[in-house]
């Protein structure tokens, strides 16, 4: 099957890249810079109605009845729906479909969706929402996982297989962890906590649905998972998939926050079907905070064992995960919280026992570095503690435990390329680590941490043997090459990468490639922009498809010129020979190909090889390739105020081959920015009343440009044997070490171990006071 073909990491034209590996402008850069790009909310259709959502004011309640009569009677109202209109449950993971578009009998957090209204304008829709009378029977709200575990009734979800408000429990053990601890020269043990953060993408969620006269439905939505949304719409609306078209317009950021199907998509669609008119539903910033799916709060206990030289012998983890009100990706989160820790260090025994618990709060889900940022924080701080115990340089400790390449982790994951050792070298060199670490004045310090992340996973969220990613290509006498792909460009630049691949393979200028993406009517299926899978998987599919067309163009030229195909070079929009003879604009080469082979088109696809450990859950977290990252963070701490100022982050990231170094560096910087901000500022928190403490961009403090450290992106390229030209992911991995490296830098600065995030000034000041008391 072509999908599993290996294309090799070499450049297509005698080893020299002409487009890739060089900085390329984003295909939508000019449109975005000038305001020409159309986001979902920019779209307007004749006769369009506007919808609003009625939400629960209670953290937990049973719905006794809903009276929509007055709302329906209001002038300008065209449609009112409640849970009874959309009773089919759904969820991005087929085994945990516990969501409905609107509450059917129960609301589970303040902000849970209860009803939706379509009207001539938003104001009328909102006025109608206010007229809907809901009779709630208020139930006790569980706002922490401990509370939810201690009070199984009334259950947040009734589930006979998993009672007691448990969303998912995973316990896996590899090797003899307790034996390792019993025999270890050093055992470091401690508790850590992560507080919860959200994505805060600049574009709020928005959906626009249009019914047509033939009973078909088109939905434009700010989504990063067009394909899964397509399936969910068919399920919930009871429509055949071929009657539904899903289109993702230009997207203003996602970071994992748009990778579930959301209430507004079903509501806009249903209201459009009921009213026969286009319906748009745009959520407010506050509503985006309720949609959430952000990074899970976790309480983590780690016990790490080593021999006297610092070689790790065992890691034992216990994690309590606060899931919020629904499952979302929680099954995967629970696995990822353990499965993704087993590199870049080698240890022979490992156990994790992770429990995700439902609480009456906005649902958590996947955020950049899904499931693994929190455990990575705990573990990398613990490695620093181990180094301190052994009086070893923390980088040296990490070097003693390198996993290496072409190996298998303790939980059975296949490692191919691995540039982690070089990542450590790079941050050590660039930060002046040897000269400066441990020698800076009090309050000023350096810290290191490492990490590993997946380049896609071989676990599609619904099991199937079809390709994970596909493209379709057409080229013709105009000289234009069009690539159709289901891949979602969510700002990360996937369409730019794919255009670059096609331009490289077919020798056209990148401007002569048009990418049509994320339209289920036009594009072959791709599973979506999550798990850092697009460059790796769709990149390979694009090579696969482009090479089929390239063969036809070469065959036509070889016949015309009476030369061997190997002598022909397609580059820079021209066809010629490597020796300089012959020169033809590509358009004319395409005419020859179209004349000989008739209408030109090709498909390309990619599927993962069989991967993963031979046990239940062994494929979750199994990836065809892993990226590796090391950070050194420099901090200054104000000992009087407890304010931590992050001065600089050196980010060394092994992304395989950097197909577009500017995009790679942008992802590295953006990741480190986000990680540092999560550690110092951001806190997605629900207060004692069950209310979001500050659902606005004023109260949810993203770091501003003046709070952002200097960011140094150091690209490391370990050419991966299976990645497209050797490329791996760059969008999520580089976030992980930011948090522990920052904590370790604070230790270097002050001798303080911070194990609870976020590192607010009050928390740091209390720690400083305790340290002073202990010292006096």
């Amino acid at each position, binding site marked *: 099957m072509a999908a599993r073909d290996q294309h090799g990491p070499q450049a297509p034209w005698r080893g020299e890249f002409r487009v890739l590996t060089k900085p390329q402008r984003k295909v939508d850069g000019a449109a975005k810079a000038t305001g020409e790009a159309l986001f979902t909310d920019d779209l307007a259709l004749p006769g369009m109605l506007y919808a609003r959502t009625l*939400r629960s*004011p*209670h953290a937990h309640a049973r719905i006794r009845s809903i009276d929509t009569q007055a709302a329906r009677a209001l002038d300008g109202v065209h449609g009112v729906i409640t849970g009874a209109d959309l009773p089919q449950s759904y969820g991005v993971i087929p085994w945990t479909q516990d969501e409905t578009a609107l509450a059917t009998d129960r609301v589970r957090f*303040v902000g849970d969706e209860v009803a939706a209204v379509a009207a001539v304008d*938003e*104001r009328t829709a909102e006025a109608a929402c206010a007229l809907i009378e809901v009779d709630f029977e208020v139930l006790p709200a569980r706002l922490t996982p401990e509370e939810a575990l201690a009070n199984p009734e009334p259950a947040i979800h009734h589930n006979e297989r998993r009672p007691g408000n448990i969303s998912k429990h995973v316990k896996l053990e590899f090797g003899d962890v307790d034996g390792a601890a019993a025999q270890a020269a050093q055992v470091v043990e401690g508790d850590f906590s992560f507080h919860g953060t959200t994505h805060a993408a600049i574009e*709020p969620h928005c959906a626009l649905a249009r019914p047509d006269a033939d009973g078909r439905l088109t939905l434009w939505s700010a989504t990063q998972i067009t394909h899964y949304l397509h399936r969910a719409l068919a399920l919930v609306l009871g429509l055949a998939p071929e009657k539904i078209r899903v289109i993702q317009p230009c997207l203003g950021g996602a970071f994992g926050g748009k990778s579930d199907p959301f209430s507004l998509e079903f509501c806009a669609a249903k209201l459009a079907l009921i009213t026969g008119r286009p319906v748009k539903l*745009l959520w*407010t*910033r*506050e509503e985006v905070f309720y949609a959430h799916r952000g990074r899970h709060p976790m309480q983590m206990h780690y016990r790490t064992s080593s021999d006297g030289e610092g070689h790790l012998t065992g890691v034992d983890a216990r994690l309590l995960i606060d899931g919020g009100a629904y499952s979302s990706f929680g099954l995967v989160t629970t696995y990822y919280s353990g499965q993704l820790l087993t590199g870049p260090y080698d240890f022979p025994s490992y156990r994790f026992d992770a429990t995700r618990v439902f609480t009456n709060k906005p649902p958590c889900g996947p955020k950049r570095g899904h499931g693994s940022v929190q455990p990575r924080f705990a573990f990398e701080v613990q490695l620093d503690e181990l180094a301190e115990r052994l009086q070893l340089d923390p980088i040296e400790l990490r070097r003693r435990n390198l996993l290496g390449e072409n190996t298998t982790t303790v939980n059975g994951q296949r490692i191919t390329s691995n540039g982690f050792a070089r990542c450590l070298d790079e941050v050590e060199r660039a930060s002046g680590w040897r000269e400066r670490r441990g020698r800076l004045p009090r*309050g000023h310090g350096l810290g290191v941490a490492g990490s590993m992340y997946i380049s896609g996973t071989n676990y599609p969220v619904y099991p199937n043997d079809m390709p994970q990613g596909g493209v379709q290509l057409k080229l013709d006498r105009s000289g234009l090459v069009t690539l159709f792909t289901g891949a979602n460009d969510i700002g990360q630049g996937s369409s730019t990468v794919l255009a670059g691949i096609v331009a490289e393979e077919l020798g056209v200028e990148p401007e002569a490639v048009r990418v049509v993406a994320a339209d289920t009517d036009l594009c072959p299926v791709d599973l979506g922009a999550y798990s850092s899978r697009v460059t790796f998987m769709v990149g390979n599919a694009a090579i696969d498809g482009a090479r089929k067309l390239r063969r036809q163009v070469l065959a036509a030229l070889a016949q015309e010129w009476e030369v061997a195909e190997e002598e022909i070079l397609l580059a820079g929009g021209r066809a010629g020979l490597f020796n300089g003879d012959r020169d033809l604009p590509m358009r004319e080469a395409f005419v020859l190909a179209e004349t000989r082979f008739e209408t030109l088109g090709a498909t390309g696809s990619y599927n993962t090889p069989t991967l993963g450990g031979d046990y239940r859950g062994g494929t979750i977290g199994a990836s065809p390739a892993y990226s590796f990252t090391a950070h050194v963070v420099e901090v*200054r*701490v*104000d000992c*009087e*105020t*407890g*304010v*931590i*100022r992050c001065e600089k982050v050196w980010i060394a990231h092994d992304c395989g081959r950097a197909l577009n170094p500017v995009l790679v560096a942008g992802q590295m910087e953006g990741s480190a920015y986000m990680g540092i901000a999560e550690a110092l*500022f951001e806190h997605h928190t629900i207060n004692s*009343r069950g*209310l*979001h*403490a*500050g*659902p606005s961009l*004023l*109260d949810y*403090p993203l*770091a*501003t*440009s*003046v*709070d952002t450290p200097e960011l140094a992106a150091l690209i490391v390229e370990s050419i991966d044997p299976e990645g497209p030209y050797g490329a791996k992911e760059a969008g999520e991995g580089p976030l992980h070490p930011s948090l522990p490296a920052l904590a370790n830098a604070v230790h270097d600065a002050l001798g303080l171990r911070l194990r609870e995030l976020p590192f*607010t*000034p*009050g928390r740091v*000041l209390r720690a400083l006071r305790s340290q002073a008391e202990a010292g006096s």
Partner: protein
Amino acid sequence: MLRLPPFELLRPSSLEEARSLLVEHGPGARPLAGGTDLLVNLKLGSTEAQTLVSLAAIPELCGIREEAGELVIGAMTPLAQVAASEVVRSRIPVLAQAASVVASPQLRAMGTLGGNLLLDTRCQWINQSHFWRAALGFCLKKDGSKCHVVEKGKRCVAAASNDTAPALLVLGARLVVLGAQERSMPLAELYSSDGAQHLTLAADELLVEVRVPLPEQSARSTQHSAYGKLRRRASIDFPLLGLAANLELDESKTVRAASLAAVALSAQPLSLPKVAAALLGVETSGAQLERAIVAAGALAQRRLKPLDNIPGDAWWRREMVPVLLGRTLRAALSDTGPVNGDPQ
């Protein structure tokens, strides 16, 4: 997007016209300056108005001029202009500093000095959407009867959050207000201690200008001032604590007069005469200074007790009182303000 509720917008071109429109439209009318506070509160429903009387087309409300030993600043002068003004920076630097750390550059371009002085009080239980406040059961500042900060509290403790108010308090500023008659009053009299009703202006009164006495320049005395702002981020955020200091030194560098004021505590910006008195007679060139700063810090910490009204860690804010005071005083004496919470 959270939309603005409907309102009528009027654009008078003179002060008299503006006032007569306010009188005509009654209590449902509000003057609109930069809108950076009012429009947000209208969206949230924490403020209601049927009519907005824009002051943007009244030229005499905007500008900075010297007049008989006073600096006169029009109420509609943008904060960015106050912060950049050469005469403000050189003669009354504490005001330039305070204006320079309000919100963000974009908001300082829109926001005005008068608007900042009249900024509504803030609290984590009020600066929220109508949906959110309804889910809470509202609070006594608007639509409710319960205080969520002080159990059984009967008076709203939402916090004054205007950076320029303490700066103008330590400068001894007066306000010119136009009602049925024009009147002038000390800035302190603008505010009441009730966070739900924190201004003493009548609904038809307009703040016209701020008059700041310019310090005398002489060889025998020098004036030193600074503003210190505590906030989580280095931009955008409202103060978690704001302190203004204004010191007059004689030729031997001894403090002859001292004035301190604070904001982001309760409904009123607070003048701190007793704390300031601890600095009188202190020789700032000697070891006495640090002892006096410590003493003033201790006094200030006893006087200023941050509540859980605005978001953030009230314990930390309280611990920061002497720290911010010390830094602000040192910045004043070395003419190096503002203090904005960067690590030292």
